[in-house]
């Protein structure tokens, strides 16, 4: 409590919690990289292989969308459980979640070709191909262009409105200090969490699982969610480190907060492995052709190597890497594992999407880099845009004192 009195002074906050010039600088640089990256991707994609462009774009999009959805899930969770440790860093999460309109915009190069009947990614976009395949007839009621668009609009409107509302209410509290906003948002976040679970699941199915419309896995949404949570926390840790390096939140965010973020990275690394194996084992055991087909491709040749590699780089190595509390409390070490996880989560998305393009070899391409860097740039620029006129800490949140004084046992 003594600590709180030192930092949170009357009418102000004893720390630099405004982006000021940094926001526009970040928007310029990240946005510039984003535009160049995606511009180069479109250029290269237009002049060369369309299939390569579409699959690289979807890989990168599944990756960046998972980070944004992870952020939204995290903010909803903090309100839902009335978390106190996280209040000082919650605004940064809210800002990362408020990238939903940008993520909706970035989905257009996937959605528009599908609407025009281009079946490079989704065979169901072409109604003639659907008609020709008897096994898909019954699925056509769900897998068709019109319903696809309806679903996407529902997802993005819900995510966009929810993230916008959570941010604006939190910012409103900065001014009014109204304590009832806390309980109001907690009440809102209970049904929102259920809807978020459903929309995230169906989005994962729509964007990724329907690449192979004959294959299905009921746990697929949870698999995507596990990756989303672990990679969001990694991104979150890096974002906070960057802010602190630039003199923002330097005194308010401590090793204790990084320790908790590190715990989530560790826990969800194990969770990801649990879910990934759960999906695999049931299919392996039951050995039903229409289910094993998906793993068959990923179990042989070059893809088989990637699958085994994923067990190591997505689970075994980061699991032992993040096991120690000293690692979670050390910024350099945590930063290393955060970068590691973001890279291997990208590999996970590559593993989900790209076998659809080539079952034999690994279609790495310069487009993978340009698409990913481009989307990352625009994602950061969107978060920087939202951060322009707000505090980086919800200064009037009644839980802030506890969050500032928070210590792990």
């Amino acid at each position, binding site marked *: *409590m003594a600590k709180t009195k030192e930092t949170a002074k009357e009418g102000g906050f004893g720390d630099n919690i405004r982006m000021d010039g940094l926001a526009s600088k970040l928007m310029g640089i990240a946005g510039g990289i984003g535009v160049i990256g995606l511009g180069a991707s479109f250029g290269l994609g237009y002049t060369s292989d369309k299939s390569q462009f579409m699959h690289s774009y979807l890989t990168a999009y599944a990756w960046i969308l998972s980070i944004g959805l992870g952020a939204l899930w995290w903010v909803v969770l903090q309100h839902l459980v009335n978390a106190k440790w996280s209040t000082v860093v919650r605004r940064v999460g809210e800002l990362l979640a408020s990238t939903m309109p940008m993520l909706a915009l970035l989905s257009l190069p996937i959605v528009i070709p599908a609407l025009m009947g281009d079946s490079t990614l989704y065979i169901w976009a072409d109604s003639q191909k659907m008609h020709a395949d008897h096994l898909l007839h019954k699925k056509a009621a769900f897998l068709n262009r019109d319903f696809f668009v309806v679903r996407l609009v529902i997802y993005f409107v819900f995510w966009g409105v929810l993230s916008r509302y959570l941010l604006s209410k939190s910012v409103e509290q900065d001014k009014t200090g109204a304590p009832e906003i806390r309980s109001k948002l907690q009440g809102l976040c209970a049904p929102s969490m259920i809807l978020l679970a459903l929309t995230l699941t169906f989005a994962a199915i729509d964007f990724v699982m329907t690449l192979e419309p004959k294959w299905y896995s009921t746990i697929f949404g949870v698999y995507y969610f596990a990756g989303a949570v672990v990679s969001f926390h990694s991104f979150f840790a890096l974002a906070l480190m960057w802010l602190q390096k630039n003199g923002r939140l330097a005194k308010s965010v401590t090793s204790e907060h990084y320790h908790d973020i590190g715990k989530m990275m560790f826990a969800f690394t194990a969770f990801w492995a*649990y879910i990934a*194996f759960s999906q*695999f*084992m049931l299919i*392996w*055991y039951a*050995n039903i*052709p229409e289910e094993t087909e998906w793993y068959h491709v990923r179990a042989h040749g070059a893809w088989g190597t990637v699958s085994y590699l994923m067990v190591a780089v997505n689970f075994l190595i980061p699991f032992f890497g993040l*096991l*120690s*509390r000293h690692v979670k409390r050390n910024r350099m070490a945590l930063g290393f594992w955060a970068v590691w996880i973001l890279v291997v989560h990208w590999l996970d998305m590559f593993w989900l999407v790209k076998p659809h393009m080539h079952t034999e070899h690994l279609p790495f391409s310069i487009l993978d880099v340009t698409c990913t860097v481009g989307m990352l740039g625009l994602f950061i620029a969107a978060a920087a845009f939202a951060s322009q006129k707000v505090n980086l800490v919800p200064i009037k949140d009644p839980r802030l004192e506890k969050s500032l*004084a*928070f*210590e792990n*046992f």
Partner: protein
Amino acid sequence: MSHHDDDLHGLLAEYETPSALVAACKKVRDAGYAKWDTFTPFPIHGIEKAMGIRMTGLPWIVLAAALVGLASAVGLQWWTNAVDYKFISSGKPMWSIPANVPVYFELTVLFSAFAALFGMLILNNLPQPSHPLDHLQAFGRVTDDRFFLYIEKGDAKFDLAETQRLLDGTHPVTVDAVNEDRRTSDQLPKPLVLTAAVIAVLALVPFAFIAKARATKTDKPKIHAMGDMDWQIKFQAQQPNPLFQDGMAMRAPEPGTVALDEHPDDEHLTAGKVDGQFVRTFPAGFKVDEATMARGKERYQIFCAPCHGVSGNGDGPVAQRAMTLAEGTWVPPTALGQDYLRQMAVGQLYDVVTNGVRNMPAYGSQIAVDDRWAVVLYLRALQKAKAAPVGDLTDAERAALK
């Protein structure tokens, strides 16, 4: 307050707030005491640091226990499945990692959870059935609204006057001298010992029943511990089913249905016959190569070896088990190296695999068409190995036989 030095066990300081206690802890810590502790109604953030408590070895104990748990699980699964009691399940290999991962996971978690709990208790010298503080009236508020700091006389730095002065300087409500506990006996309480003894004896009862059951025979029907599993509410093959118009539980395929690997027009391939005669050649397009042979060997060892044996001598584990039980009706499986089988047309061997013969059930529903031919190919290799002409042997092998 007066007491004999012999009777003194330690000094207890009482505080009204957590922050007063934390401040006192820092002073006691800096004074260099080692045998002292704090007692509070709830956990206080940051008190470990104020008390100077360092990290314990508990994380390493838990990690070690986790690895022991993992190793135990691997050993258990390997020994029971691949060595001691080989049993084919769902056509999987005897030793396959994915099927065992849930057990690895469970035992790793179980061992680490136990190590965390018991390691914590041991490192904290718990349980302590009695403590001198238990008899102090004022100490009762430790579960309510008071915060205590206790320094034991056994501490190397303990000096009654000096320690008293130190504690007085931390603004306590009171400082009490605590006497040795002379009232509680060193022995464990009788009811506790009795209860433990009764539980220990009762714990042996199930083992006694198991031992008896293993040593005796009975005519009574077996105990059905889980009736829901033993008598499932479901329709089985060949049973009537009133839900369907034809009254049968088994359903026929839709007319005209063709499975993915069926080629109804190619009789040679799917039936092993041409014009009603068993074929003596493998179907067109069937590749006789090492990959097919390996596939046939694998399928053979999964589906055929349990009865016919790995070498085809009719001595698989199922046959051996049946012979051990000496059930009168058991007809031993055919040894596959016999002459009449060596001369049998491949088409007929294929037909036996597909439709069964005598006691042997049909495997057509379990083994795909190509795999059945691969099994026949491997069977031919087994037969050849049993009656290999001398001309097929290498010089070295011939020399070895002489």
